């Protein structure tokens, strides 16, 4: 009598095997992905390794992957440079204030837009999205900022680009999807005003979208360079990126000294570039693994109904 096969084990004949072609495809996939991984990772590792190597090793091209002659001379130079420290402080200020202002303004317009009974929301939406399609241009905007006497003030970096239309759209989509009408109706019956509802109910429930908004605006402020370039003249207001530009790209770091001093200075200046890059990107890249999840979430929300 034949033994009845139990469902616990599947006979080899029944297991679904991948065809040879599919297995080859899969291995090609893995190879390609690994290549991409290396292509992205290698420059980053190279920079970090160079930043903690000695000036001589970097200048003579001895660094390939791992640091050579570990030294923190580069970092010491970076932190003893006043301009850099001032720039760092300014950027921290602009990032925090700018993100705060931007998030508040974005929510202030996205929330009303998400309510079905808010008359005029379609017109308002068109009003906003038109700015996506057409802009006055560089000079006209500059003249407005100048007319408001904001040139060479801190406000010039906080206001002109305070609201990103894309973020308003994402926020509005979130409010529409996550704050049920019934909640609002119930609060209304209890005599809760719109503002109170916004502050006490909506905001606490909106932590994900607030995180996304804050991060997008914060990163944008930290990396921003163009507004500072055109609106600021005083060095003490410069954000970090502007200072970086003068050191890294325009090479303004030296003075006049004798030949051997100059060579040492040059090597140090060269090394300092790597350390500076690391220091400038560090805040963002350290927080990055934690915030990446929120960025992805934000993009998902935005792309589901753009």
């Amino acid at each position: 009598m034949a033994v009845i096969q139990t469902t616990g084990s599947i006979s080899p004949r029944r297991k679904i095997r991948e065809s040879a072609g599919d297995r080859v495809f899969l291995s090609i996939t893995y190879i390609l992905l690994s290549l991409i991984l290396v292509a992205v990772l290698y420059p980053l590792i190279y920079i970090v390794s160079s930043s903690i190597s000695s000036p001589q090793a970097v200048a003579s091209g001895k660094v390939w992957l791992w640091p050579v002659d570990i030294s923190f001379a580069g970092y010491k130079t970076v932190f003893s440079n006043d301009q850099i420290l001032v720039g760092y402080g300014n950027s921290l200020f602009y990032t925090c204030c700018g993100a705060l202002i931007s998030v508040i303004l974005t929510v202030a317009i996205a929330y009303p837009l998400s309510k079905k009974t808010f008359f005029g929301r379609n017109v308002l939406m068109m009003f906003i999205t038109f700015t996506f399609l057409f802009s006055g241009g560089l000079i006209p905007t500059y003249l407005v900022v100048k007319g408001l006497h904001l040139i060479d003030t801190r406000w010039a970096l906080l206001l002109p680009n305070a609201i990103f239309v894309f973020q308003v759209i994402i926020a509005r989509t979130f409010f529409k999807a996550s704050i049920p009408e019934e909640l609002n109706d119930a609060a209304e019956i209890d005599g809760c005003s719109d503002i109170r509802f916004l502050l006490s109910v909506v905001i606490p429930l909106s932590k994900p979208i607030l995180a996304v908004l804050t991060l997008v605006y914060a990163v944008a402020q930290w990396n921003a360079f163009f507004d500072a370039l055109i609106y600021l003249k005083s060095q003490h207001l410069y954000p970090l990126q502007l200072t970086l530009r003068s050191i890294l790209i325009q090479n303004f770091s030296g003075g006049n000294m004798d030949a051997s001093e100059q060579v040492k200075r040059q090597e140090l200046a060269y090394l300092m570039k790597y350390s500076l890059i690391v220091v400038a990107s560090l805040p963002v890249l350290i927080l990055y693994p934690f915030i990446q999840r929120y960025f992805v979430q934000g993009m998902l929300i935005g792309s589901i109904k753009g």
Partner: protein
Amino acid sequence: MKAVSVQPQTETRERSTSKNYWKEAKKSLRKHWQLYLLVIPPVLFFILFKYLPMANAVLAFKNYQVTKGIWGSPWVGTKYFDMLFNNPQFWTLIKNTLFLSLYQLAATFPIPIILALLLNEVRSLRFKKAVQLITYAPFFISTVVMVSIIMIFLAPRLGLLNVILNAMGMESTNFLGDPTKFRSVYVWSEVWQTTGYSCVIYLAALAGVDPSLYEAAKVDGASRLQKIIHVDIPGILPAAVIILILSVGNIMSLGFEKVYLMQNPLNLQSSEIISTYVYKIGLLNANYSFATAVGLFNSVINLILLVAVNAVSRRISENSLW
């Protein structure tokens, strides 16, 4: 008990008359007055920093005199536009902007899609997450830092790329000083920086594909490649089309920062684009009217492009921006 009269259904249906609009508006104003107040600061922002500049763009038709301000300056009609079109550099600008943009589009559009399709095949969640995490990282590097990384790696003597080329027996190239190489450097560094970020959108679209389609494909005996062609790609097509529309529509509005930072006197022939030209002529040379004319021209072209591309897309597929 009182008799309650019930009105026939048709009479209670609201009609969209202007009288009803007003009623609705007043009702909303009374109910949501706080929200209307709340909306004022953002609206003020848009008026001040977006719409007022649009009005200021009339400067393109005037001869700007600082003492008279924008509205007091005399009209000159299309003088600056004539100047622009007759300027031989104008066509170089358009060519540079267009070529750079198209090159960038051709490179940065398909690669994130391919990456997303490949990642979708991978079964190991850890590997998938690792690739995503790492490829997404360069996006957060600022433009200034990115360009300085480019300059370091492509330096004529000490740059890593040249060192590798030398080791393989080839001579060093001055990548950034060569107008013919400028575009490639710009575009491929852009690919390096943005692929991971763009890929996420496609991965999200892929995650939304109906699983029963995959099962059907398997039952039909489709190989991985066939599955990709027949299930994955149609799944991400809507997202891809929208992104393509946006990219094509923005072809003439190539950004300023990265190109400006990468410019040097040697590569200016291919690196001078419309936005950098407007900056130099307008802010550095204070030639406000002319620069406004160029900028206005650019904005109008952009608008036309976006509208046209959207219309085309609406005809040939179901996806469009509006």
